[in-house]
């Protein structure tokens, strides 16, 4: 609130002082330390030139920010830039009249813009079928594996070898629990994003028709395939044996404390959780690893997919603002700006140049595990199964995945029944979205 008041005050003051400056509203969902970093980025841009002033406003969680943006658009009070998380992409892309595609904006404003400068996994997620980039990548992350080196050693495992395969995760967890080194082997944030979506991409397995929804709006899910069923079945089995502990729905808020308190020795979460892990895991040494895969699956490991958010430009603002937005996006693409944002937060450097910038300044050498997410996401060129997903109403489908996973762990459904229900309910939501957008 204070921050809001301050920005209002700053707005009022600057509007009085330099009336020639064009204000650009930027709504975002980065709270806490990430929010401060984001405001720094905006302040740096404002200091770098005098024609435009980017005004960031915190709007709550990702879904809240998206909802606020949509409500504002309906009331014709929309900001020029809004940060939308990856699963809102389907919703934004379908809103053709509301969105000013980034490739078009940059062309209209004569700003240099090369989609090939970005990492393929990032670009793939946000381009349309014709290869045009519709939004500006900002904060992208990918899930990785964190583990407790001290507990590994106590259990008689090698402290420098993270589990590579799910078979090893199971064997290691069993050894950790049976040796009494920790009460639980494994926990995970984001069952939907990590254990279902990324799991499928990592195994090069399709999760829906039309190239995981990229090709057409009326797609069908295929989460009830033997591989995901097998994995969910295993998670349930491991939970019953005490090897796996559930961290809760959505982002799995209870997973981090289980890892910090040395209750669970292996923990999967976003690469952007790295800063929090380093801050909280003070009593033990943390190791990093790539996501595990089932060793008998052909084509695994493929590459992981991204999460996080991109910046969308909304239609209906004065033309002068769009010139500023284009300048701001060019600023954001600069390697030093990118690296300055990615290094402390754990987000991926999303351009090749930013990646090289961090390599050259010695960041990766000084911070073990920091380079791993980018190596994982670029392990292989993305396939049709591993460039991401794009289904309508996917915000709701994420909830469905959580609910059915809870039904599985609660014992009221088998893995097959739960995933059949995910597909049936998800397909109904996609059909509803297709009907509303035709």
């Amino acid at each position: 609130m204070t921050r809001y008041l301050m920005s209002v005050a700053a707005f009022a003051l600057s509007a009085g002082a330099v009336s020639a400056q064009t204000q650009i509203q930027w709504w975002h969902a980065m709270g806490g330390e990430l929010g401060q970093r984001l405001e720094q980025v905006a302040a740096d841009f404002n200091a770098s030139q005098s024609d435009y002033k980017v005004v960031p406003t915190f709007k709550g969680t990702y879904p809240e920010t998206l909802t606020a943006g949509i409500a504002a658009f309906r009331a014709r009070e929309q900001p020029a830039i809004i940060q939308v998380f990856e699963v809102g992409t389907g919703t934004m892309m379908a809103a053709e009249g509301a969105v000013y595609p980034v490739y078009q904006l940059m062309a209209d404003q004569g700003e240099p813009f090369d989609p090939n400068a970005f990492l393929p996994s990032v670009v793939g997620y946000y381009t349309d079928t014709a290869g045009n980039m519709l939004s500006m990548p900002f904060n992208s992350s990918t899930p990785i594996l964190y583990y407790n080196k001290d507990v590994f050693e106590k259990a008689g495992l090698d402290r420098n070898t993270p589990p590579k395969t799910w078979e090893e995760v199971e064997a290691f967890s069993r050894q950790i629990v049976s040796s009494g080194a920790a009460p639980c082997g494994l926990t995970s944030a984001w069952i939907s994003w990590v254990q279902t979506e990324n799991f499928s991409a990592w195994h090069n397995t399709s999760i829906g028709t039309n190239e995981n929804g990229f090709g057409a709006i009326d797609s069908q899910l295929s989460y009830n395939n033997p591989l995901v069923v097998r994995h969910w079945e295993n998670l349930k089995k491991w939970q019953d044996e005490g090897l796996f502990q559930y961290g809760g729905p959505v982002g799995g808020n209870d997973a981090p404390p289980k890892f910090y308190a040395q209750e669970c020795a292996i923990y999967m979460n976003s690469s952007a959780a790295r800063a929090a892990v380093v801050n909280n895991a003070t009593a033990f040494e943390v190791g990093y690893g790539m996501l595990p895969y089932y060793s008998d699956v052909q084509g695994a490991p493929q590459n992981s997919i991204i999460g996080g958010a991109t910046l969308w430009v909304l239609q209906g603002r004065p033309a002068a603002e769009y010139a500023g937005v284009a300048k701001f996006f060019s600023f954001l693409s600069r390697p030093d700006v990118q690296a300055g944002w990615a290094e402390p937060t754990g987000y991926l450097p999303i351009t090749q140049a930013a990646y090289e910038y961090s390599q050259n300044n010695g960041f990766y050498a000084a911070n073990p595990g920091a380079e791993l997410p980018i190596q994982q996401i670029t392990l292989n060129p993305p396939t049709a199964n591993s460039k991401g997903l794009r289904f309508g109403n996917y915000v709701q489908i994420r909830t469905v995945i959580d609910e059915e996973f809870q039904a599985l762990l609660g014992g009221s459904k088998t893995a097959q029944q739960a995933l059949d229900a995910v597909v049936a309910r998800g397909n109904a939501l996609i059909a509803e979205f297709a009907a509303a957008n035709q």
Partner: protein
Amino acid sequence: MKRTLFRNQLLPWLLLAPQLAVTTVFFLWPAGQALYQSFLRQDAFGFRTTFVGFDNFSALWADPLYLASFKVTLVFSVAVTALSMGVALVLAVSVDRLIKAGTTYTTLIVWPYAVAPAIAGILWWFMFNPTVGILSYVMKGLGYNWNHQLNAGNAMTLIVIAAAWKQVSYNFLFFVAGLQSIPASLREAAAIDGAGPVKRFFTITLPLLAPTTFFLLVVNIVYAMFDTFPVVDATTEGGPAQATSILVYKVYNDGFIGLNLGSSAAQSVILMGIVIFLTVVQFRFIDRRVNY
């Protein structure tokens, strides 16, 4: 009733105007919007709108989760009402017997009502949290594995306790007031006739408390059905697997998170019907049958 005659035709309307304006802007207009929206299918941004008649409603009746939500709401409302009124009655009767410390206890018991529902929800969430909660830790020590994130029964218990706890204060105040308005002479007469405390409570006190009890019954059901959104949102968020997704929460979730405005509007129209029904019941039947 006192009647006032206005000479000027305009004045009464003018005096009513502020209230009418508030009612129109904050109640009638949104209700009308919801009704209109419930017949439409619209994309999130509002570009494409189709009139779909009763499609949104028939989709709801065909949705097993929506029907399950009715059952959840019923269980929840009955449990919250019974628990909060039962506890409040016991407390009120106990305080009624105290001569000196009564006001102190009353003040203490009323305190929870001042706690914002969202904060109350977070407090209970913390205490029962399976990972960091003190109560779940104690229960684990006693051999019970509490996990409201996966166990539907645990989750329902949690939101019932969280929602009832707050309401106990409110019910308590009304019960105390109701008890104090019962003439002591009635109970004394019964005591002289040889009725024990239990008999006196059930034959004298409880029947004379009937107006208060019926009033609170309606208020509590309305509270449990429509005012408990913050508690649910702060504790279980409707989970696990929608086991605690009461009707109001589903309206929010489908509308504000899922952006399915048509379905959300249809659900709120159904809720509006339930509110109207409950209000009619209160005014038509309860107010008439019960003599204050």
